């Protein structure tokens, strides 16, 4: 799988030359439920093909709890949750529908 960075563009970036299971990234910063996290997450994950992964980076404490719930509620699958120890949380989710 290829991890690509999304540097603030309008949509998730896509790995080059990969098949299903590609990893796209979305830096959610400090977005939370009160500031449009759900809407932006939905827009980002629906912009990638079914079966691909969206790796979301967040520094918002509520989003850390919310993103896995959001993914499950929207029919996607949480594949991994990483905590690098620097205040960020990296959550990788597979688009399910």
């Amino acid at each position, binding site marked *: 799988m290829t991890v690509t960075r999304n540097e603030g563009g309008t949509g998730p970036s896509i790995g080059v030359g990969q098949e299903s299971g590609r990893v796209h990234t979305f830096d959610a910063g400090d977005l939370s439920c009160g500031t449009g996290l759900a809407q932006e997450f939905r827009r980002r994950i629906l912009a990638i093909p079914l079966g691909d992964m969206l790796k979301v980076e967040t520094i918002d404490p*509520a989003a850390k709890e919310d993103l896995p719930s959001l993914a499950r509620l929207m029919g996607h699958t949480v594949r991994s949750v990483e905590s690098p120890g620097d205040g960020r949380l990296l959550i990788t989710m597979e688009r399910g529908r």
Partner: protein
Amino acid sequence: MSDKLIFNCTHGKDDPERATLPFVAANIAATAGQEAVVLCTIDAVWLGTEGGAEGIAQNGLPVLSELYSEFVGNGGAVWLCGSCTKPRGITEEQVGKGATIVGAAKVVEEIVAGAKTVAFA
């Protein structure tokens, strides 16, 4: 399927009775072996910070700091609304034992899965 019982608390030092009652009910649930959560919103989010429940007591009700500790000791969880902690400047570092900052999706997921909610007006 979620068996959680979620008790909403919206007040802190501003209203000791309304701050304490949800913890009374939630602690009964936790004591009885139920999966109990106090969901703190608005000014109640201060209750889940270190020392945030200190000095809150309503005549006829348990001292809140002691009740809070007992509730957490019984396995109870305290969820702090992230949209309420952020504007109050409450960070993860300030969150006390048993408490977690959560967002609305966390609560919605539990309710969709069958959790029951109790509100104290």
